């Protein structure tokens, strides 16, 4: 997200003026925080009841919005001006006679306000995890499937797999349609046809196994070894091949497709 600033400063006349100045820092934080951090905080608030079963506190949330909005602009808007007035980036201090003291002071105050709002968010989340209001299944009356199951969802998500017939499957008068017939004794999932998404196959899910973790660990050893000798790629491939083979090999005592 922050990289979007690069699109603007790719313009040479602009870059000549702004290169290595506080303007760049200010602008990419505007883009990054406005474009990614605020949505992230919003997303955590939105799905918090789904993954904890409890709501985050609304009054604290309102304080959160106001403080972060003020703190964010107070920090980064004056930084644009400071940069245009000649404040370089990547320095921890600047000469007093440049006349940048006021703008930098405002930025500092804003940064503390913004940090306080983030602490408020973390505190709200921690407190709400234990003491928040208990959330009903579909607390936002949202249309998407995750709200069709209880909060927090069980490991298997749905007791019966829902049939999706629109982009807003939960906004309906009747009950959500589901399918039946999957085995309760082995890990089956339904595969659908590619274009029409009609149920097509009962596919077997792999059972939990330690093999992928082992494969990842020995692969890491091989790659680190390759920093010291290229032959590590060769001997490192052997344990990876063994781990992958164990992963693929059918497990004893596990029910598979019995056709």
């Amino acid at each position: 997200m922050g990289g979007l600033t690069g699109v603007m400063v790719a313009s040479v006349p602009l870059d000549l003026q702004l290169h290595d100045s506080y303007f760049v820092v200010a602008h990419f934080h505007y883009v990054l925080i406005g474009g990614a951090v605020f949505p992230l905080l919003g997303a955590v608030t939105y799905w918090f009841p789904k993954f904890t079963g409890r709501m985050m506190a609304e009054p604290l949330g309102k304080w959160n919005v106001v403080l972060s909005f003020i703190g964010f602009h107070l920090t980064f808007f004056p930084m644009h001006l400071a940069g245009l007035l000649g404040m370089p980036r990547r320095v921890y201090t600047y000469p007093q006679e440049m006349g940048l003291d006021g703008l930098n002071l405002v930025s500092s105050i804003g940064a503390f306000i913004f940090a306080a709002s983030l602490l408020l968010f973390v505190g709200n989340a921690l407190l709400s995890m234990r003491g928040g209001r208990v959330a009903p299944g579909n607390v936002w009356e949202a249309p998407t499937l995750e709200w069709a199951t209880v909060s927090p969802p069980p490991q298997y998500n749905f007791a019966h797999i829902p049939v999706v017939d629109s982009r807003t499957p939960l906004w309906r008068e009747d009950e959500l349609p589901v399918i039946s017939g999957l085995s309760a004794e082995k890990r089956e999932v339904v595969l659908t046809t590619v274009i029409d998404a009609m149920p097509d196959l009962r596919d077997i899910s792999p059972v939990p196994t330690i093999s992928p973790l082992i494969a990842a660990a020995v692969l890491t050893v091989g790659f680190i070894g390759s920093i010291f000798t290229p032959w590590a790629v060769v001997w490192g491939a052997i344990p990876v091949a063994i781990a992958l083979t164990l992963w693929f090999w059918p497990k004893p005592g596990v029910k598979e497709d019995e056709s």
Partner: protein
Amino acid sequence: MPRFVQDVRALPDHAFDSRSLTWWGVLGYIAVEGAGFALAIAAYFFLRGQEMQWPPSALSPSLLWGTVTLVLMLLSEIPNIWLDRAARAEDLRRVRLGLIAVSIAAALILVSRAFEFAHLNIAWDRNAYGSIVWAILLIHTVHLITDLYETLVLTALMHTRHGEKGRRFVDTSEDALYWHFIVGSWVLLYIVIYWVPRL
């Protein structure tokens, strides 16, 4: 009581080609590795454009072993296609034979490949041309080795009691698909390594 609209009990538990999840995995893998080959070929022609003569201060790779590999590769498609058909017919006896045949073919090709390295007429660290030729041959060899290993594991598996499961025939068919990729990519790389220097 949930509203049941369909019962999936009667659906099959395996199918071939685009109905299989792992078929898409193989296809994605071929796309990724094919892009790797394409980049290597692009690097080869980039270097060729920088030189006054090609190959620079070296003889062209000797034709014999590369061509032997090519002929063996094309011949290996006979047992490979036969194996694919046996897998689709879910004929375990023919699948076992076919897997052994393809394994032997891949092992023979690997021997011929070893001779290819000895007849490239350039050391890998001699110049940029040597490096890219060795790189192209090496990445194709890595794919060859992985497919040989995969086929050997599958051959062993199909000789156990697990081999009777329908899902394993899909695995076999997808192993045959990957072998098509190894053969097809070699036709292209053979032309680049052995015939572009002779243009």
